[in-house]
């Protein structure tokens, strides 16, 4: 298959079955250089199987993908040289030190011997573990192990980093640290393919998202596009005294650009909009002008979780 112009990953009809049972059912998407692309879905959605095929770990049952200009079927070795992989498991040797682990993986990634030591220091710096690199991995916290796990995938300076749920089982502080590191890498130009079942991680990191369920991509696009795809709108609710909810204020609010609909309760006005909290200052200004006291403001923006719920009828963590 030909890669789409400008794509670093071009996936076309990728399928994987185990004993006739489909795990991935003809997924297609592409990832552009420098982009951070997320695969979001609950456990068993097919994210890991998809990334496994793109990392040339699993043989596809059908379809193909071109990664960094090489077909995963025709030239898996070239694909492996171009990508870094951070698996879901902490795939390290616990009785070796972080530096020994990195030294071993540098050899596996064919980093030239003369450059290996420098690269190891470089990736240790990126993940913030230079000080403790001489300690055995089994003495590290879960978060530190995860950071070494990421460092391994960066050793050969890949064009693309595939991360499969890299924050599973870590504490919130380590998770933030890892997400910040990954975002920094992306801002420095590294293309990311990121899988997670944590909606907030994908929202934080990814420019575009493909939502997967039961082996299929059920929605794909930027956050805004996804919201539009399913017709979800933001809701801004303002509570005031009932006496101040005059017809004039309602008309003023309804006439604001960006307001799609207005629902008026006894002492509460709900504004439905696609422009989100950007509209809030204008709404507040109209209340002030009408001399209506604001007792409470609530902004509800539909997130990927609610999108998934709407698309599948179940929660992401089901």
């Amino acid at each position, binding site marked *: 298959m030909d890669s789409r112009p400008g794509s670093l990953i071009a996936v076309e009809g990728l399928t994987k079955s185990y004993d006739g049972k489909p795990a991935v059912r003809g997924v297609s998407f592409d990832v552009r250089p420098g982009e951070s692309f997320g695969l979001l879905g609950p456990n068993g959605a097919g994210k890991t199987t998809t990334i496994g095929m793109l990392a040339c770990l699993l043989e596809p049952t059908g379809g193909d993908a071109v990664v960094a200009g090489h077909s995963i079927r025709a030239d898996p070795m070239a694909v492996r040289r171009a990508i870094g992989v951070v698996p879901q*498991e902490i795939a390290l*040797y616990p009785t070796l030190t972080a530096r020994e682990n990195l030294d071993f993986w540098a050899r596996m990634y064919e980093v030239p011997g003369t450059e290996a030591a420098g690269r190891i220091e470089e990736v240790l710096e990126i993940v913030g573990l230079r000080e403790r690199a001489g300690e055995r991995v089994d003495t590290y916290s879960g978060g530190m192990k995860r950071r070494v796990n990421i460092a391994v995938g960066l050793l050969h300076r890949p064009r693309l980093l595939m991360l499969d749920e890299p924050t599973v089982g870590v504490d919130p502080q380590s998770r933030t640290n890892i997400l910040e590191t990954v975002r920094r890498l992306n801002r420095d130009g590294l293309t990311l393919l990121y899988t997670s079942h944590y909606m907030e991680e994908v929202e934080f990191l990814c420019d575009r998202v493909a939502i997967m369920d039961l082996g299929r991509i059920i929605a794909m696009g930027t956050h805004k596009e996804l919201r539009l795809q399913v017709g979800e709108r933001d809701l801004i609710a303002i509570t005031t005294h009932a006496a101040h909810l005059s017809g004039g204020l309602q008309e003023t609010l309804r006439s604001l650009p960006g307001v799609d609909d207005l629902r008026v309760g006894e002492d509460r006005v709900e504004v439905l909009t696609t422009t989100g909290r950007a509209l809030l200052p204008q709404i507040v200004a109209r209340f002030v002008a009408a001399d209506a006291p604001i007792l409470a403001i609530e902004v509800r923006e539909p997130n990927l979780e609610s999108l998934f719920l709407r698309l599948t009828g179940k929660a992401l963590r089901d």
Partner: protein
Amino acid sequence: MAAHKALAIAFKDLRIRARDRRSAVILLVMPLALIFILGLVFTPLWEGTAEILSIPIVVVDRDRGEIARLLVDDVLASGEIGPRMRVERRDHEGTARAMVMRGQKAAAVVIPEGFSQAVMAGRPTRLLIYTDPAQSIRAAIVQSVVNRFAAEVVKRQVAITVAAETLIVERVMTPAAVLSAIPGWMDDLEAFVGRQAVAIAEEREGGIRVPAAIDYYAVGMGVMYILFGVSLASGSILVERREGTLARLRTTPTHAGDIVAGKLLATFLTGLVQFGLLVVFTGLFYGVKWGSPFLLLTMVTATALAAAGLGTFLSAMARSPEAVEAMAPAIILPMSFLGGSLYPIYFMPPWLEAASRLTFNRWALDGFLAVMEEGATAASIARPAAVLLAMAAVFLGIGVRRLWGKW
């Protein structure tokens, strides 16, 4: 394939193994302790085997005739058999019997008065042997030597009787002339005794040379623990599969062949290093003489390869490292017992000894014990080494094929 990647994988495995204290205890300390304990426990039994070749007997010669002299001086106390029997003479049968009953002697041989004369005259006579049931093997050897002597005497007696009767009946010789000629006819009995002594000596020389208990168990335990060592080492591929490092290896630009070669090399080197250390330690601290370094290295290599094959086969059959750990003793211990690592091959009944040749341990033992013998040559170990290498090829072939299928 890239050899440097296989080497990197192998050395990484060895580094991990070197840091595993549990493995170090199992693979090195345990065999050394067992060699010491078994060497100590079995030394009396081993010495018992050695004492078979130096049997204490007591002889009561009340005949003091020519045939009695032949039996005592030429068969039991000199020639080839002499050094292997400690003959003490006593005048009284009661004393000799008491010595046997007290376990001081394995047997007492009593030659009655008139024994030689009776033999010469072709009259029935008897030899008495008292034996100590507690020293049954040694007693049986004495009995066997005396029986063979007696049988030869009887054969000649019959021949002499028939010849004498014929000569007298046919009137070729007078009865008096026949009687005076008989002692001469018995002369060739001396020649028989000489031949008999040589025959028995040859039988001994052609038999198994028994090494010292500590030497035997150094080999036996070494062979058994190399199997445990490599089965643990080969299980590392299952550990890597479970921990996800094998999958990660496969996302790197590394060929499957490099990974398999690296793991096999690590398994083989584990066995090689383990046995090498055992040879050094037992040589230094237990005084085990392992023989020619070249032949020893050949045997260690063949054994480590065969063990690596067996370990790979086990790993290929198992689903998890725990399954390998459970399967290993279930296979290795019975094989070690049958193969002579635990129960010495010298004490096995013939059918068990024959069955032991089906095991890895037996061929390894044969090879190492041959290396230990004085004057060992490449020919001495050619057969066991070849069998071990064939085992390595078969098990590695099946094991690698199966592992590849599970890839």
